[in-house]
């Protein structure tokens, strides 16, 4: 064979492969590996006229911030990656900024929704990007949909006080719901790792809200929904992008029937369905939400590579600033001021008959 061996571009990934966030980490890394294989099989990526194949270097950080710093130091100085995908937790994405900056390697966070991941004290961090929308936006969408579309006036909130994501969403939901004229009748919390929510739910029940906002991940959602139903509560429940998972349906069953959540994408979209099927075929398990987002992060990266002057971190970061593509999670147009995908519509999903049914795109005002 005379096929010339293409040069390799190393791309880092990190997230939790162990610890309680492991479900999401494994899903992301699997997706990255699958997409890279597909890209390489299709001939690789052309950067500045030269063809390269992609290689993923991934490490586990247990979801731990300190390990995130170690891993990023390793990826940048040891493995010499030109870009990093992940992590999914804001608390892991924030402390790596100074290292990215000194190594001049961009990072595209997946589900890190805290505004401070990319912007701090009004200044954008030059090497931090993300593919998801941010908490204030998601909180505003949820509050707006609950108040205006579902007509709820009295809302109760149950959130995870020790989780940054949950606390952030709660804050922006509460602020926006009040601004719209609604009332928060109960504002209860639990702590990561808790499995029993009946004390809080009983209290919520006694306040008789129209809707319960549950901004946390599907395991707790399923458990708390089941317990609420056991307590005889019939309220509509609503949540954020921590909800969608096949496991929510299998664990929550009837309890989550008729509930709503804010999502990044519409599952019935053909592109989404295609990726979903590929993943299931390759790994034998369903993908999670993180898979969709890291999928688009890969698209962002590949697009930036194609437009970059050189296959190095600095050029890729520059190209990323002018990203404007369509991913499976919607239109992704990165703003150079915030490094966030601006104007990304949120999708409202309702659970009907154990299926995720797209309701409408909803943009907060």
């Amino acid at each position, binding site marked *: 064979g005379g096929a010339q061996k293409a040069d390799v571009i190393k791309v880092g990934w990190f997230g939790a492969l162990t610890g309680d966030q492991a479900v999401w980490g494994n899903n992301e890394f699997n997706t990255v590996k699958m997409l890279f294989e597909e890209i390489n099989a299709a001939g690789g990526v052309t950067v500045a006229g030269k063809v390269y194949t992609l290689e993923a270097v991934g490490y586990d950080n247990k979801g731990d911030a*300190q*390990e995130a*710093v170690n891993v990023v130091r390793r990826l940048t100085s040891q493995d010499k990656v030109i870009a990093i995908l992940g992590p999914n937790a*804001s*608390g892991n994405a924030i402390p790596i900024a*100074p290292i990215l900056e*000194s190594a001049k390697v961009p990072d595209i966070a997946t589900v890190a929704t805290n505004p401070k991941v990319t912007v701090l004290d009004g200044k954008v961090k030059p090497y931090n990007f993300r593919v998801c929308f941010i908490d204030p936006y998601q909180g505003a969408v949820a509050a707006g949909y609950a108040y205006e579309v579902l007509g709820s006036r009295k809302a109760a909130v149950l959130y995870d006080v020790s989780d940054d994501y949950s606390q952030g969403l709660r804050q922006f939901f509460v602020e926006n719901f009040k601004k719209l004229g609604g009332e928060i009748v109960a504002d209860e919390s639990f702590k990561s790792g808790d499995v029993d929510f009946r004390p809080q739910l009983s209290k919520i029940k006694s306040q008789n809200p129209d809707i319960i906002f549950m901004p946390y991940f599907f395991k707790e959602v399923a458990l708390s929904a089941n317990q609420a139903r056991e307590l005889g509560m019939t309220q509509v429940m609503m949540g954020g992008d921590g909800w969608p998972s096949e496991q929510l349906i299998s664990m929550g069953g009837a309890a989550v029937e008729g509930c709503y959540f804010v999502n990044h994408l519409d599952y019935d979209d053909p592109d989404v369905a295609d990726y979903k099927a590929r993943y299931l075929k390759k790994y034998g398990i369903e993908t999670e939400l993180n898979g969709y987002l890291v999928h688009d992060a890969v698209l962002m990266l590949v697009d930036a590579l194609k437009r970059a002057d050189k296959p190095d971190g600095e050029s890729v970061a520059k190209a990323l600033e002018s990203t404007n593509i369509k991913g499976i999670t919607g239109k992704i147009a990165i703003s150079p001021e915030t490094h966030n995908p601006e104007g990304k519509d949120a999708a409202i999903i309702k659970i009907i008959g154990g299926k995720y049914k797209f309701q409408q795109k909803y943009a907060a005002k």
Partner: protein
Amino acid sequence: MSSYLEGIIMLSGINLIAVLGLSLLTGFAGLFSFGHAGFMAIGAYSAAICTTIFKLPFFVGIAAAAAAAAGASWLIGRATLRLKGDYFCIATLGFGEAIRLILDNFQGLGGARGWPGIPPHTTLVNILILDVIGVVLLANLVRSRHGRNMIAVREEELAAQVAGINTFKYKMLALVVSAAYAGVAGALLGHYMTFIQPKMFSMVKSTELTIIVIFGGLGSISGSVLGAVVLTFLPELLRAVDKWRLVVYGLAVIGIMIGRPRGLMGGFELTPKSVRAHFARLREAKAARADQAAEEKGGL
């Protein structure tokens, strides 16, 4: 030096300071704490307040961290030091979780979402300087009457009391000093990460510190040093095995406990004098064995 290697060395240096403190408490005074990450959290947040909000120099932040952690430990010690063994252990565990819960709820300092933008004051140099100071002070302490009194409390509390040692006072001293060390470590960690979040100071962190102390060898400062370095590097070396990493780590912990009766350096202190004495002992033991073998043969 690659930034990666430098990072790990810095982290082991930071861990070392916390471990030294815990080593005083557990290894020398015989008290077992599950809440040391709580003291680190207090240190990290106090130092960050000084440097980020009040724009004070770093060393002021470090001093404040030590003082705040020490103060908190004094309060908690007042309430719980009379408890024994596992009861004290539970109290410290509760304390660590309580600190975290307070910080989670305290939105002024970022709550659970964390506090970014802390100036990157921690450097390899200031870590190493503090490490050396930490080791020297601790070594001086344990080889003074104060340190000996702590050891006596660990060995036999009742006898210590009857020997005129105010056991409560010395347990308190050990707790306060060890909390101050943890506070300093917290301050360094915060200014190394430039970001602090209550999650970083979970019970897992506390148990990690305890594992290091015992892994290194109870009552041995050099053991703690070695333990901090080995156990900070070990997970990094295991990166290649991916998700099997913690499986191996768990096995390594069991392995050392059953394989090395007193931890890596248990009861042994690495000083020139001790090394010489150790070799002398080895020679003696060899001679004694030969002696015995000869006699057993003769007896048959």
